[in-house]
């Protein structure tokens, strides 16, 4: 009985069903500031959930809690059926979590392609010794990383700039690079914090396609974004956070009409 086993492991019953990613009662405070308080959300496999809310609502903090970049004060995080609350961030990445940060910096000493190859870390194994001595299998692995990175760049439309030093990328392309790097991780759950900020409408349209395709490949995505037009075109479901708590949850069209959301976030004359 899986439920029984779960009880024995101390996992609340509600968490055991096959959600891809789930938080229960997650709270995080920075000193006196409660950034996230008692948030429980549950994301289905292969879905794309948008997280929206006013500035400072706690969206980025919630993603950071899931990705393990900041320890939670209380609550649990479960991904792919595994309780990962106490795991380190890099261990979480190994089991399929990938994150695009709100502010990313590329590694300036590497070119764009190599930056994306960094994303291949979780599924490759060349360590220090192999890196120094370069046995044949290392070459093979390097080639496969190159190929994967190239593919990710093609997907986001940055392949044309793959040999450009990453330090010279303009803001918009930096976002694309971050998305490509996350994709190169071959994640099962993708956390995206404003991945299309600073892109024009045409460039956003391309990413709408990318994310929609990923959904078809059963990839679970949680995405933070302020561009409601973009949200409307990709989201299966929208969760609205305000002051650290969930104030609305549902399909995009429904949430748009929610009074509290309009008041706190959208404003009356949303463009």
């Amino acid at each position: 009985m899986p439920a029984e086993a779960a009880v024995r492991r101390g996992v609340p019953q509600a968490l055991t069903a096959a959600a891809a990613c789930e938080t229960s009662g997650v709270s995080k405070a920075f000193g006196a500031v409660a950034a996230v308080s008692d948030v429980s959300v549950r994301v289905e496999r292969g879905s794309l959930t948008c997280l929206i809310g006013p500035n400072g609502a706690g969206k980025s903090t919630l993603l950071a809690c899931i990705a393990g970049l900041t320890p939670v004060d209380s609550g649990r995080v479960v991904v792919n059926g595994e309780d990962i609350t106490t795991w380190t961030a890099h261990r979480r990445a190994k089991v399929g979590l990938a994150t695009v940060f709100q502010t990313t910096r590329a590694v300036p000493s590497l070119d764009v392609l190599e930056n994306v190859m960094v994303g291949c870390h979780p599924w490759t194994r060349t360590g220090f010794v192999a890196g120094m001595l370069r046995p044949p299998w290392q070459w093979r692995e390097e080639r496969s990383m190159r190929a994967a990175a190239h593919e990710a760049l093609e997907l986001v439309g940055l392949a044309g700039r793959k040999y450009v030093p990453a330090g010279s990328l303009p803001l918009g392309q930096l976002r694309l690079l971050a998305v490509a790097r996350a994709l190169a991780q071959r994640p099962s759950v993708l956390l995206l914090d404003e991945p299309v900020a600073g892109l024009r409408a045409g460039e956003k349209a391309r990413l709408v396609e990318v994310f929609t395709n990923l959904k078809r490949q059963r990839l679970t995505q949680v995405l933070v974004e302020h561009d409601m037009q973009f949200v409307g075109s990709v989201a299966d479901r929208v969760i609205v956070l305000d002051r650290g708590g969930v104030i609305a949850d549902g399909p995009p069209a429904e949430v748009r009409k929610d009074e509290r959301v309009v008041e706190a976030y959208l404003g009356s004359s949303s463009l």
Partner: protein
Amino acid sequence: MRLTLIAGAAVFACWLPFQLSQGQLGLYDRMGLYTLVAIGLTLLMGFAGQVSLGQGAFFLIGAYTSALLTVGLDPDDRLLDPDAGIDPVLAVVVAPVVTAAIAAVIGVPLLRLRGHYLAFATLAFHLIMSSLLFAQDRFTGGQYGVTVTKPLEVGGRTINGATHAAVAWALVAVALVLSANLVRSRAGRALQTIAVSELAAAGTGIPVATFKLRLFVFAAALAGLAGGLFTFYTQFVGPEDFGIVLSLQFVLMVAVGGLGNVYGAVVGTVAILYLEHEVRELGTRESLLGWDLPAQAPSVLSLGIFGLILIAVMLFFPRGLLPAVVDGARAARRRAPWTK
């Protein structure tokens, strides 16, 4: 093409000492040994973003390890029995191992510290090692150090003078190849990611602490190896050769050579040591440009000229000599009409 160039340079570097005079040889040998340390430091600082102001401490540990193992660890045995220690070759091999082990142990707490905290912690580590050398004098010989009489012999051939320098530079070549490979590999890219943001690196699946520690240990091992050989460069180890200034000097070397390129370590080390040597020769003269030099002239000149050149280099080439040369060459090629 690139590989033949490197191999050619390595062969040249190992052949050169046999052509040098006694006076130049010492300088050249020292350049090789210090370069080994600088390579480790440039990996730490230039690629992983970890500032170490205590690389000299690992050099010190390597040197004392090989010296003490060679003469015998037990201070009482040492006095009575000239054969108390182990084979020098073995001692040189053990030196980097011991150094790496110590680095692995202290690295765990130290590398939790970041930025200036780490810089200070490594500096403190060196200061602690230095003062222990004086305090534990029965064991280390205190200020008068340890004189090693046994020569370093491999297959009946004594490794000293030109052969010693050749060995040092051969190791430099090996270390350079390994390091250049490393930085262009998965692990190297991971380290460079760590330098930019440890959090972002962790989010990408890089075990930050482990990787930092491994690199720290590797850099320490290089310094320990250099130190182990250094013992047989002078057949003597004493604390005055390993003052805190040495650690600072290594930082100057990698900064002047240029971070972000392992070959910068070679350029920086050679440049700094050569400059130091030339300035010292200058100061030893009795007169300069027809002026009789006063008694303090050697110190004044060596401090002053060295200081001025440091200032000038970093003002005009803030990223270091090697990047400046590379950029210059690139610009020249662009300007040259025949490339169009």
